[in-house]
């Protein structure tokens, strides 16, 4: 995974609460077996007026010019400003892949849904929780003339504002380390393989009926 330490980007204000992962990346684009190719369909039903299909590029679509990400001033945005309970609904990690591929490196909101929040850290997208009043203020600035450029420093856990102001934020320690060092989560766990193996052996001794599990393919013949 790509490490994240510090980055600067324009904030795009997505002014609605409870944005679900079905909106972030609609289901008709989940049929890929790859982790890439989702950015073109980020917020598809809001960004475009026509119903999209896999393979159509944004140039071939009818843009909804009223949608915030389509406004010229928010092109090249790197930070998504959002409202409460962002990323609720489906566990699809495709939502995070789509946000990253579109060009966002951070999402700021008063609250996030649990699975989405976890999925962010597995992919190098930084979710930042701030008090609602602070988010309100950022929305106002981002919607105001000239927009709002934010520098986000993960190591210092600090957002730097253009006027020299700073906003502190807090990211769980384990998640912060993972992002800062771009750690391989599975590798980190497999470092404890002996411990897992020992636990498993004693666990199956305690719960012998779980040893056979769901069986093997040979038993699955129709």
């Amino acid at each position, binding site marked *: 995974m790509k490490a994240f330490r510090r980055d600067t980007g324009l904030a795009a204000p997505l002014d609605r*609460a409870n944005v679900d992962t079905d909106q972030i990346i609609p289901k008709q684009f989940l049929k890929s077996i790859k982790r890439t190719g989702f950015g073109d369909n980020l917020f598809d039903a809001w960004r475009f007026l026509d119903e999209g299909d896999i393979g159509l590029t944004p140039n071939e679509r009818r843009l909804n010019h009223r949608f915030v990400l389509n406004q010229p001033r928010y092109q090249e945005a790197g930070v998504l400003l959002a409202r409460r309970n962002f990323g609720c609904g489906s566990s699809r990690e495709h939502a995070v892949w789509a946000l990253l591929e579109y060009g966002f490196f951070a999402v700021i909101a008063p609250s996030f849904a649990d699975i989405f929040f976890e999925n962010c850290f597995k992919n190098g997208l930084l979710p930042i929780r701030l008090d609602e009043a602070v988010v309100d203020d950022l929305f106002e600035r981002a919607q105001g003339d000239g927009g709002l450029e934010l520098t986000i420093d993960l190591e210092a856990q600090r957002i730097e504002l253009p006027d020299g102001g700073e906003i502190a934020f807090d990211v769980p320690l384990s998640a912060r380390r993972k992002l800062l060092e771009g750690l391989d989560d599975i590798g980190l766990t497999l470092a404890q393989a002996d411990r897992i193996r020992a636990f498993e052996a004693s666990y199956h001794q305690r719960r012998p009926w779980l040893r056979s599990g769901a069986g093997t393919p040979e038993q699955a013949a129709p």
Partner: protein
Amino acid sequence: MATLYDKIWADHLIGEREDGQSLLYIDLQLLHEVTSPQAFAGLAQAGRALWRKEANLATPDHNVPTDNRAAGIDGIADPVAREQVVTLDDNCRRHGVRQFGMLDVRQGIVHVMGPEQGATQPGMTIVCGDSHTSTHGAFGALAQGVGTSEVEHVMATQCLAQSKARNMAIRVNGKLPAGVYAKDLALALIGSIGTAGATGHTIEYQGEAVRALSMEGRMTLCNLSIEAGARAGLVAVDDTTIDYLQGRPLAPSGSEWQAAEAHWRELVSDADAEFDSAASLDAAALTPQVTWGTSPEMVAGIEGATPNPNRAADPTEADGVERALAYMGLAADQPIADIRLDRVFIGSCTNARLEDLRVAARIVAGKQVASSVKQALVVPGSGLVKQAAEAEGLADIFTAAGFEWRAPGCSMCLAMNPDKLLPGEHCASTSNRNFEGRQGHGGRTHLVSPAMAAAAAVAGHFVDVREWQ
């Protein structure tokens, strides 16, 4: 002193990783075609193997067609969807994972198939790359939806690296009135605490009304935990749980059954266990629920009406209500019973089990789907549900009433297969999400119980099913 969640957590806790994350041992991972291919590919790329192949069980469900099933994979017209199902097949074969494929009578929606096979057992930790994995909590199992990276992590390590959630108790006192079901209970709860009401928590459902629910009802309730923001919901083990499990193909038998049952019986919260938060509901006061908006918390009783943004608590809420009403093509203060339906969908991991189909069939028996309803679909949750429903005559009742009787899968719950709404169409749906476009681009979903969906199909608009009992 411990809650049920505390107990299952402690029983599976391996220890802490060097970064402070807890390593939780996972007993079972359910796999389907949409969220597993990237995980299998990741394993291959890193040259890693499955930690324990028999801890995985797969079935295709999200984008399988619900007609022309005899054609198997060749019956999938959409080449991209077909590639996912073929890839699941290949991956299962290559990695030695048991799969109930498209032609297997045991194929079905993962969250219907797992319990039906007895793969889901009390005290287990279960994951699946699907947020409705919370369903399996009905058995007193800690079941969580995970992202694809976590799917791969569990494949490679048999562990989930996570922090413990907080405990939340939801007590449902009293008895559900006739015509009011687990679905209504869940929707009313989400309406009351909101879609983020249980974020960061594991819910335990308690109280007389929960104890009185069948396993099917408990699965419906736990299924919707994620719509209240909780990754997992739990119901303590009792006779209802034990009776359901007896004789299931993957449930233990003989002396192992004795040992398992003894352990399972301990899977209840201690009387003096402390919860970080709590909510309660009076079952007797509940009425049939209908969602009117684009989030499961936007719900009203059948006797009620849509809200008015002028009465919203704050500007964000007013904006949400206004936007939802506009998307749904509804007015403020519009009576719920006036909402007319274009399609009806009875199915999904929330409500496609035999009990759900029985309730719906009882409502439509001898009646006809209203001529104004373009399509009424029944999609059983698994091949075995379908078979059982056909054997007891339910399929005939549905088809005589004008419903289409289909093959199992997720179908119109998320419309990844050809079953979908057209723009502007209203659908009475027994599924779990009424998000914009969920059942098709521009489609308008109203979440209801199977009884309410069946009655709406006959009437052509929402009606109070309590008057049809």
